[in-house]
């Protein structure tokens, strides 16, 4: 295949054509490596524009199925039908990251809840921890439905699967559920154990990232944020120094690009958030409410709201700790609010 074309190229070309020496399967192999290690969409999309042979190979299901998470790290303001099309092609190639990314975008941004959830479920079946956790958040909140659509048991079950795959927020959520008897019979000791595990994993992760730490633009921005105080919010905030339950500062975890997409989508004019709906107050999340008062508020100040305890815990260390001021409300009803504050404050 393509030999005739390559022969033609050789006659036109004066320079040595390195590309001609490479048989098709090796080109596919190189492009698979590129798609999985690309650090931005353009790294990979460039290939499509170079020539017909490379375009054909770049869109080969074998290559698309390997595409890594950063190949889909598109900007919300650049969202377009071809971008959607590209994600769909990768979904058809069985790419887990594409399933999750498109699932989140459809569910939250395009408000196509059924199709979004089903894409995330397909990613979850392929053991995508973030997809399992995102589905758990949807179940806990009854997102896309009414208050009565909350399914706490399903949320706990999904969290447990994500936690087994090493998802830290899921493990923390599971710990809180066990402690509070939320969707699962109460077991304070086991819950506490999971919370300790979540923190231990966080520490291990941060130690590993410290060992491979390279000064990059992102870190410079983070340091600036620190210098200007924790109240600065901006796109640079992708995670936060956590290990929050024990009051230690560890470097930020990198959020999934789709969280940045969601946030941009609703903060730019691309996405319209219906009146009375709010975004999760954790800057690195971007999940919007799908009905009024879906998310729970901070039980101390009532001024911020979170889609999950994971986001609450992350935002607490990053920002909210210094902002949170008790209001008169705090003595009032705490039914819909987080009940984990006292424990968290104690550990700090």
């Amino acid at each position: 295949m393509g030999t005739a074309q390559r022969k033609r190229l050789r006659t036109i070309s004066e320079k040595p054509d390195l590309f001609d020496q490479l048989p098709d399967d090796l080109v596919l192999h190189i492009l698979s490596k590129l798609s999985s290690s690309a650090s931005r969409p353009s790294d990979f999309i460039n290939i499509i524009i170079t020539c017909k042979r490379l375009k054909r190979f770049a869109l080969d299901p074998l290559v698309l199925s390997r595409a890594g998470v950063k190949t889909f790290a598109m900007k919300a303001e650049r969202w377009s039908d071809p971008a959607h099309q590209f994600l769909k092609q990768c979904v058809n190639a069985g790419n887990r990251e594409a399933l999750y990314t498109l699932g989140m975008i459809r569910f939250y941004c395009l408000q196509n809840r059924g199709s979004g959830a089903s894409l995330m479920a397909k990613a979850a079946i392929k053991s995508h921890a973030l997809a399992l956790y995102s589905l758990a958040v949807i179940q806990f909140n009854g997102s896309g439905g009414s208050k009565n659509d909350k399914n706490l048991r399903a949320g706990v079950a999904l969290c447990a699967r994500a936690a087994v795959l090493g998802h830290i927020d899921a493990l923390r959520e599971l710990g809180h559920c066990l402690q509070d008897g939320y969707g699962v019979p109460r077991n304070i000791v086991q819950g506490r154990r999971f919370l300790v595990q979540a923190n231990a994993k966080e520490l291990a992760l941060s130690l590993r990232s410290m060992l491979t730490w390279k000064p990059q633009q992102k870190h410079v921005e983070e340091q600036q944020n620190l210098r200007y105080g924790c109240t600065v919010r901006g796109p640079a905030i992708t995670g936060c120094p956590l290990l929050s339950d024990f009051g230690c500062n560890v470097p930020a975890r990198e959020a999934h690009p789709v969280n940045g997409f969601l946030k941009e989508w609703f903060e730019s004019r691309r996405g319209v958030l219906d009146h009375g709906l709010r975004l999760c107050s954790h800057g690195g999340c971007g999940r919007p409410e799908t009905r009024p008062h879906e998310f729970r508020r901070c039980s101390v100040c009532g001024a911020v709201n979170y889609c999950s305890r994971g986001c609450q815990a992350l935002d607490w260390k990053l920002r909210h700790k210094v902002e949170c001021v008790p209001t008169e409300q705090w003595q009032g009803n705490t039914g819909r609010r987080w009940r984990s504050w006292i424990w968290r404050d104690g550990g700090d």
Partner: protein
Amino acid sequence: MSSSTDSPTLTTETTQLSPQPDTETAKPTKKITLKSSDNQIFEVEESVAMEFATVKSFFEDSPSTDTVPLPNVTAKPLSQVIEFCKEQIKFKANPDEAQKKKYNAEFVTEKSDKDLVDMIPVANYLEIKDLLDVLNQAVADRIENKSVEYVRSFFGIDNDFTAEEEAALRREHAWAYEGVDED
């Protein structure tokens, strides 16, 4: 199969650790001769040659031969491939992932684009999977974060899109180009 020397490293130099350092011939490290397409002769230790799955199966089929002709392989990439495999054998005897990673990274960074691409078909023909992985990743890394024009010149690709086709493709994929400097 490798040899009876107990030394952890099995390079050419290790022959000197054997009881009679001076006689190169009658030693536990058997030599195998490889002949490139441009008729250059390479003498490599058996352990190194056995890294090449192609050479290995050649020997399994006809054990009596002592020269293996490699009609698809020229001397320069072959010598570089041999260099790589010699190092890999050291790591096999003495596993050190960090050192191996470092060596593999250095091995590819010091090569020119042409050397890299020339080695890929050789590694493929000789079926050296580790090297093929390292090389393909290195090529992928070199064309990452570069312009379309750079990728074309890297591979020596002639653009076979018409100006209109290319403009349409660029428009279609504008979503991917947020914040990228067109250079």
